[in-house]
């Protein structure tokens, strides 16, 4: 990856105060400096009204996803050097209502997860031992391959079908449904496939791979959605069991 040493970059930041974009000249102490470091510099020394969100600052919480030069990324996990560009354009995630500058309201995204049934429901809530599940068990292996989503909303922003509002159920929710459909501990299991097969589900996905190309957690979303489609097509959505 090209890494050019730069002493400053220009941040071009979308604003919601009606005045259009703001430009900031910001020092870059090292090519490993994060885009988040630049935003914090602006907030502390240039414009404290700039709105953005972050928390863990090590790529684990998913609070700071936004568009960096047009592509979804965590600003805490994006080094300035990796962008190899003297101008860095920042904009909020798409498909979600903008609250302030680079911050979006995540609630519609969370609501979509809930409404799609992308949450575990126990078959044996009060069980007091740990099931034996070998890691090479086919279903567990299928789950493991897809685990790691941190619900940052990047795929929701990047996928054409959620971005343009055709569906609220995006790759993150469907990926979780795939995991749960394979989860022997889940009460609904494969019955969750009905959502995937429904009006807001997989039919909108054209396997363009926009979701997986931006996923900051590296979850193989496209693969998961294809396997989910296989399950639906094999008619497992109609089974009441698993």
């Amino acid at each position, binding site marked *: 990856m090209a890494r050019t040493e730069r002493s400053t970059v220009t941040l071009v930041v979308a604003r919601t105060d009606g005045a259009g974009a703001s430009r900031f000249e910001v020092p870059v102490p090292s090519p490993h400096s*994060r885009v988040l470091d630049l935003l914090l510099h602006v907030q502390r020394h240039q414009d404290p009204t700039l709105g953005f969100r972050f928390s863990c600052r090590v790529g684990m919480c998913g609070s700071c996803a936004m568009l960096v030069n047009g592509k979804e990324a965590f600003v805490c996990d994006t080094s300035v050097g990796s962008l190899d560009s003297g101008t860095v354009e920042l904009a909020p995630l798409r498909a979600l209502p903008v609250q302030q500058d680079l911050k979006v309201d995540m609630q519609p995204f969370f609501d979509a997860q809930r409404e799609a049934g992308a949450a575990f429901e126990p078959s044996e809530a009060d069980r007091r031992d740990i099931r034996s599940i070998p890691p090479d068990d086919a279903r567990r292996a299928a789950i493991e391959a897809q685990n790691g989503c941190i619900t940052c909303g990047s795929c929701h922003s990047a996928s054409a079908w959620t971005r343009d509002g055709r569906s609220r159920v995006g790759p993150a929710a469907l990926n979780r449904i795939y995991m749960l459909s394979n989860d022997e501990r889940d009460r609904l299991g494969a019955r969750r496939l009905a959502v995937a097969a429904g009006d807001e589900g997989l039919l909108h996905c054209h396997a363009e791979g926009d979701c997986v190309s931006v996923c900051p957690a590296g979850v193989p979303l496209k693969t998961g959605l294809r396997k989910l489609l296989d399950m639906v097509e094999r008619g497992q959505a109609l089974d009441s069991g698993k």
Partner: protein
Amino acid sequence: MERKTCDILIVGGGGAAVYAAIHAHDADPSLDIVVASKGLAGKSGCTRMVQGGYNVVLHPDDSFEKHYQDTLRGGALINNQELAWMLVTQAPERIYELENRYGCYFDRHPDGSIHQRALAGQSFNRTVHRGDLTGIELMNRLSEQLLIRKEIRVLHETRGVDLLLDRAGKRVCGAVLLDYQRGELIAVEAKAVLLATGGAAPLYKLTAASLEKSGDGLAMAYRAGAEFVDMEMMQFHPTGLIAGKSVMTGSVLEEGLRGAGGHLLNAEGERYMQRYDPGKMERSTRDRVSRSGFLEIRAGRGSELDGVYLDVRHLGKDFLMKSSPGMYKRCLSVGYDMAKDLIQVTPTAHFQMGGVRIDTQCRSSLEGLYAAGEDAGGVHGANRLGGNGVAESMVFGGIAGDALAAYAAGADRGQYDPERLDAIAARYGRATTGKANPFDLRAQLGEVAWQHLGIIRSAGSLRTSAAEIDRIEGELAQVPVPASLAGNAVLHERMNVGNLIDVARLIHAAAGLRKESRGSHYREDFPEPSDDFLVNIVLQRQENGSLRQAVEPVAFSRLHPRDLEGDTVIPTETAKQPVSSSSEV
């Protein structure tokens, strides 16, 4: 000011807060529960950043007694013995819930049984984990569970400002919150309040914690007059990553790297631990390794960026990629290939053991006020073992949720003192002018705490820090209150610094009283532990603003120190590779 009422108000958005909300709701779904989280609920806080895992006795050859003794030994004998016993004995109940009720995916052995490894100070492999990213797994699944309990009202990006008290100042009746985005103060009346906002490790210029935290719950409890215990106890992790002037600096590289055989070197290339702990070398305890690194840096033998070097090159790329994929990726992203490069590391403020004094039902000294997670003190004594922190959040989050539900079923809302509410509102109700920059003051406070209230303390350093804290507090009053509170980072940083100053005063007072060295607390002028200090230090703000200070003998209610043996090191067992782990993240 906006008004709300509810039965239970939970302030916080990490593991303890979310766990408490779920438990309280499930105990009685008719309860009106409000969760107010400074960041996005479930995404902020430190639980999510947990790498190591969750300590729990599951194996037939392990026992509660072993886990308990490890915990007391790790805590240098001043743990609250009843709280530590709750931690150990309730940990299995919670892991069954996490596995069976909330659907967590934990690593397994090839035979299908749950995989457990050992972190520092353990006599048995008892840490349940998911690769080296256990916290993400826990918080993802708990967030899902919070989400599907629609009746729980979640206020994202809404911080706690201060507690509401009755006229007598004895009963907590709710809290004032601030909605960041709208800039609206909200007075929430509640039958009971849980503080689970996390500790104040970000007081220090170098910290591993998530950066939105500023000891808010601790400061709120302090100002309300709750009792605190052992506030001098702040854990520093020896291997915080150095990434130059970046927010990444201070984040933790897990200690498994030292357990697996990693070396620490000074600028002269010397494995300096041979001068501090020749027996255990790099596998010595967190406090000792942190202190040694600090001393090397102070003596001018530090690295280019004021750290020391972690050398894991000899462990080989394959091993590193398999055992620590998350850390490998993190290092690579700031320019270190662990398999080829020396990594610059520094001690980093990690975890606050001290906190609000609670009983085994998470009740504080004030009626209606509960604390859990890092806001509570006593479980870990003078030092926390790896893997006991997230266990504490889950165990005591659950206990708090159950206790809050039981309390709320039988209690009325107290009558809050309107004068107190007016005073809180007045602080932010009128715009002021001034030129001070709260971000600069924050940086100054971080430096003062690091140099004088941190890894090494003395009577002199405590004097210096007191004067500096006074000065910074004076300047903080010159930070302007803006006309609009909406989405205003300056106002928030002012509030953050104010809270950190309150916590710093508690740390300062307790560190002055403990004239010995024990666990994470090291006094250069009293470098040895003393049996005279098998005590807990209790602090409580009085109505006139003074601090009541009490030194109480540890209650050895379950185990006397003479019945404890052994020492703590990072076991080489840590080198065992997880059987299945997240390779994508």
